[in-house]
């Protein structure tokens, strides 16, 4: 993990414009990612995790216009301001994507085999026949039984877990260098979640891919990520190696998230220790620290000026809370 980073994100700010509103779900985010490394982006729903990864690659739903500023360098190519042609040539080939809901992400009217094979055919420049063989290999690789029959099946004939395996097969079909997984286990049964996560880690190790894992589940972070980036209201709260951030959080929001995880020694029936309050509604950028209204440690002045992300007492960890890290 000493090589040059393959992904360098710097001061990434994204404004989303829709028919009804304008919001800024991503505000000055910076991070780097190396080959083989996994970065988890953590936050509550609506904190801008997904947009951070998808908007710079031009993957926004119809009816949403993303204004992206800052810089996203992928293997030396600047993505911010790049044309659709450039972005498309990267998607699928160099960067693979896994979506949250495997129920709706697969095309209901097409055979699974075709949906996998077309990626290989397009990006690896192989014949349709070879692509089909590759699809078969991939089906086996993601651990599905009876691969030959699976190729001819349609998504509605599979369970959620199997569909997510298909989605993984699609995302890695062209051997990308970076995999973006958006809540890959959220929509699945608890028992299946662990299997899918293990599969992802396995494949990542085998292909030496970098991975961005978007999640709100601290358990997933602990199990899969090398480093973690905690987002709150579109801003970075804390960044650092997983083992350090989870053990000794240095931002009140991270502390709250970790504190909310149920523990083995909790008395049965004890009160749930969630974060009180709700995340702010996105809109105009909030003056000062966005977490102030929910923060136990807030002092006068927190709401006045925006706290910068600073190196903490541990040089590997950065946090945006001057109150706890003075």
């Amino acid at each position, binding site marked *: 993990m000493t090589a040059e980073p393959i992904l360098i994100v710097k001061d990434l700010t994204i404004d989303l414009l829709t028919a009804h509103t304008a919001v800024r779900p991503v505000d000055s985010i910076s991070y780097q990612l190396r080959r083989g490394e996994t970065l988890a982006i953590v936050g509550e729903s609506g904190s801008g995790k997904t947009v951070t990864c998808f908007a710079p690659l031009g993957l926004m739903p119809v009816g949403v216009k993303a*204004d992206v500023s800052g810089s996203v360098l992928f293997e030396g190519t600047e993505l911010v301001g790049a044309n659709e042609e450039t972005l498309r040539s990267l998607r699928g080939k160099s960067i693979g994507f896994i979506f949250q809901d495997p129920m709706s992400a697969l095309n209901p009217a097409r055979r699974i085999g075709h949906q996998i094979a077309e990626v290989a055919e397009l990006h690896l420049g192989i014949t349709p026949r070879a692509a089909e063989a590759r699809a078969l290999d991939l089906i086996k690789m993601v651990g599905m039984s009876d691969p030959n029959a699976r190729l001819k099946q349609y998504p509605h004939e599979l369970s959620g877990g199997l569909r997510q395996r298909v989605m993984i097969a699609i995302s890695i079909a062209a051997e990308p260098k970076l995999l973006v997984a958006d809540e890959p286990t959220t929509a699945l049964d608890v028992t299946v979640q662990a299997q899918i996560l293990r599969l992802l880690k396995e494949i990542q190790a085998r292909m030496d891919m970098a991975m961005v894992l978007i999640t709100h589940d601290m358990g997933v972070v602990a199990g899969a990520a090398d480093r973690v980036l905690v987002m709150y209201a579109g801003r970075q709260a804390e960044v650092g190696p997983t083992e350090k951030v989870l053990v000794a959080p240095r931002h009140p929001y991270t502390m709250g998230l970790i504190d909310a995880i149920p523990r083995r020694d909790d008395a049965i029936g004890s009160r749930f220790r969630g974060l009180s309050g709700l995340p702010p509604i996105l809109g105009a950028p909030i003056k000062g620290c966005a977490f102030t209204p929910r923060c136990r440690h807030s002092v006068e002045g927190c709401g006045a000026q925006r706290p910068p992300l600073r190196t903490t007492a541990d040089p590997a960890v950065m946090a945006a809370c001057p109150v706890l890290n003075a």
Partner: protein
Amino acid sequence: MQSIKAFAKAVAALPRAAVFTIGAFILLGLFAPYITPYDPNAQNLLMAGEGPSLAHWLGADHLGRDTLSRLIAAARTSLVGVCLVLLCAHSIGIVIGTIAGYRRGWTDEVLMRVVDVGQAIPSLIVSLAVIGIFGVSYWNMILALALAWWPSSARISRAVAVNVMNKPHMEALRVLGASPLRIYFVHLFPATLGAVLVYATADAGAVALAIATLSFLGLGIQPPTPEWGQMLVDALPYLEADPRQVILPGLTLTLAVVGFNILGEAVALNRVPKPLGARLVAARRRITASWATETRS
């Protein structure tokens, strides 16, 4: 009250072109007797086949009747016909639809199968059959079209009624002990009526087309009452000599129907997100640009 509010809200969200065309059609229809420059049925054989002039802006037909006056009077014929047909069709449709949506179960099942069959048969064939049995007359035409149109109204009413019945406050009402009659007449019926009115308006274009088609075939509005389809068929033998008398009623009818169809399209497309237009993007960017200055200060 509820239905008026729902209707007003829906109208406000409609494309201007549709509101303008439909508004013009309705105004012309309402005030036709006061704004026609001449008596639409007054013949003046000296004027027969005349081209446009200052006195007769759109000329006169083969019997020397003022074309403009006849076109305006035809708007009234069409408007009245459309309103009568929609009134009859939706009266049947709403009652059947709300009963199906309210009762559900086998009542719903039976009623909707009937509606299915009614919808599977093209509306023109139903109206032709009815006219073929009962004979050609104005009220038979209205009856024929109403019988052809009620199934689609029932289908929409049922969908709306089911939607209304599934709202949490309806459940609350039932738990609080509101009587079924009260639920039906005070809550379900008005809410359904409001929503169905929008669809009814969008459907008016198709009804106007059907009235014109029946009149064109000589089975609807009878001469000398001016009606667009009937004016067109009247002028058809003189197509070569005087195409204007064919084209004008056709165009007027098409224009009126276009208005209703724009409306229908707007109703159908409202739920699909579409890419933002340049003007909308610019407006939203003004908002985001103001953020930058705010944060700096």
